[in-house]
């Protein structure tokens, strides 16, 4: 298993990135979500599963200045229209509503690919891919890459209700086994992904658990994976002002290779982190505290 580096980015590791005016060539409703296909050949060529794109909202004089981030659901580097990138949008606020309401042939300003991809195992180990709500979006592409390496792939998709599940049919095509949970029992098993995960790990003998979804879910995936001797790789979702590493808003406490906790930028050092490196103890309802033992944490009487 390649170890996920959580140190500051060094020059050699700087990945390539592009900014493109992407044309929307398809948009369709999928349950509660809007699935958009964008022509973005530069992003499509460079992206790896687990990376994300940051989309501008409104035109160039928009009063909504900050970009919105979306996991890359799929790339097709050489489609009929040139390379395309697909995203799955949950319209929760003004920005995502604007993006979700774009029509075919509208242009959206896209920056990407951003962040670090899911590390892939070097051996053909069994893997469980866990997606909460639209968090499943980047996992199908990951599943294909893992299976191409000979890994047995199980998927666990969970959501509050059936309309908030994404890609159940796709999961059946992309994996060797699918388990579905909903909080209200409207599809699959009633309950949470954490209720079924131990059994899926045990029966498949999984060595790696990949997760994408709400923070609370990623925390429990990490604990369950650890308890079963598996490594958790989780893609987090933090409020981001820039998405490209220049503002320091998206930080969270993560333990580095040297054992020290730092407030690291989830947009460039993440969004994928090894679950056991994340200081889950520091998270509360809406954000994360700086742990007192973090590098440069405020001292009593000091800053």
């Amino acid at each position, binding site marked *: 298993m390649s170890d996920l580096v959580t140190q500051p980015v060094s020059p050699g590791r700087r990945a390539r990135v592009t900014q493109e005016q992407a044309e929307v060539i398809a948009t369709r409703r999928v349950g509660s979500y809007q699935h958009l296909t964008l022509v973005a050949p530069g992003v499509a060529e460079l992206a790896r599963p687990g990376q994300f794109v940051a989309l501008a909202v409104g035109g160039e004089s928009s009063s909504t200045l900050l970009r919105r981030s979306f996991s890359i659901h799929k790339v097709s580097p050489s489609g009929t229209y040139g390379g395309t990138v697909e995203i799955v949008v949950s319209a929760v606020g003004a920005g995502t509503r604007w993006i979700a309401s774009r029509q075919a042939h509208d242009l959206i300003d896209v920056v990407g690919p951003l962040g670090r991809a899911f590390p892939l195992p070097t051996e053909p180990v069994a893997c469980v891919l866990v997606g909460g709500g639209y968090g499943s979006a980047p996992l199908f592409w990951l599943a294909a890459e893992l299976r191409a390496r000979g890994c047995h792939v199980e998927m666990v998709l969970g959501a509050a209700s059936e309309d908030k599940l994404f890609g159940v049919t796709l999961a059946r095509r992309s994996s060797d086994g699918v388990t579905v949970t909903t909080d209200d029992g409207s599809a699959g098993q009633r309950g949470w992904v954490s209720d079924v995960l131990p059994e899926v790990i045990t029966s498949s003998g999984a060595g790696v658990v990949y997760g994408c979804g709400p923070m609370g879910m990623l925390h429990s995936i990490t604990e369950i994976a650890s308890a079963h001797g598996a490594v958790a790789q989780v893609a987090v979702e933090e*409020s981001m002002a820039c998405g490209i590493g220049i503002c320091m808003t998206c930080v969270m406490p993560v333990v580095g290779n040297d054992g020290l906790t730092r407030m690291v930028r989830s947009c460039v050092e993440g969004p994928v982190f090894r679950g056991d490196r994340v200081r889950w103890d520091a998270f509360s309802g809406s954000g994360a505290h700086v742990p007192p033992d*973090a590098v440069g944490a405020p001292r009593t009487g000091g800053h």
Partner: protein
Amino acid sequence: MVEMSTTLSGRRLANPLMTASGCAANGQELHRFFDVAGLGAFVTKSVMADPRSGRDTPRMAETPSGMLNSIGLQGPGIAAFVEHDLPWLASVGATVLPSIAGGSSTEFAHVAAALRASPAFGCVAGVEVNISCPNVANRGLVFACDPLASAKVVALVREQLPRDVPIFAKLSPDVTDITTIAAACVKAGADGLTMINTLLGMAIDTDRLRPQLGGVTGGLSGPGIRPVAVRAIWQVRQAMFEGRIPTVPIIGVGGVRTGNDALELVAAGASAVQVGTATFNDPSAPMRVLAELTELLETKGFASFADVVGIAHVR
């Protein structure tokens, strides 16, 4: 072709466009989008003596045409900055305006001394002194709200740096009379002024009905604050014209997103312009603004950028 060079206290810069401190990290991230050596100067994130974790999250809230941030000066500390960041900037040929901060005037002086001792100091065209940060000894009141505290910081930093390296005091707009602070800084040895830092603001999360930022209050930035920057630059420039403050160059910052925005700050009296929050919207904004400003001056028939600095005062 319009002559775009600008001279700041004896230092000639190829053009007047800069990044804004804290809105560009220390160069490597933006270098993926454009050559940072193409900027008049690259302004780095304010650095303090020791590594700092910054504040709790969430650290941002979006506002109409802007945002609030409460980063809390997260940074690697001056030793790491001098060892890694400054040499990297020098290696790509960037002209650098390091921004320094401190919780006390002696911390500012220590950081300035460490900077001067750096083998990469040759790429430094000037030092920006971020006095809009909390003074630990004065219950966290920012230095820039107090003329005496501001003057003390500026004087101590001035002593640490060679005479031919200009220092720019970065002022806060959250004061009753910005010309008083500007005058105190210039008299204490500031070779120039950077205006403005963010305005103090706050947002309430209406779902949870509590402050949205982990740090409770935060700094307001972005196009929404541009009129405040134009006003501050205008007032200080006016005071210089009237002889109430010795004339020094002003670096304008606050809400610049386009070449036209930059022109406003320049016409009010800025000899250089920084682009901050707009970079979050468009990673190549500083270079785009340079191209737009150049074209605008060309269209308006100006021969050089210098002709436009402060022009609104004489029209």
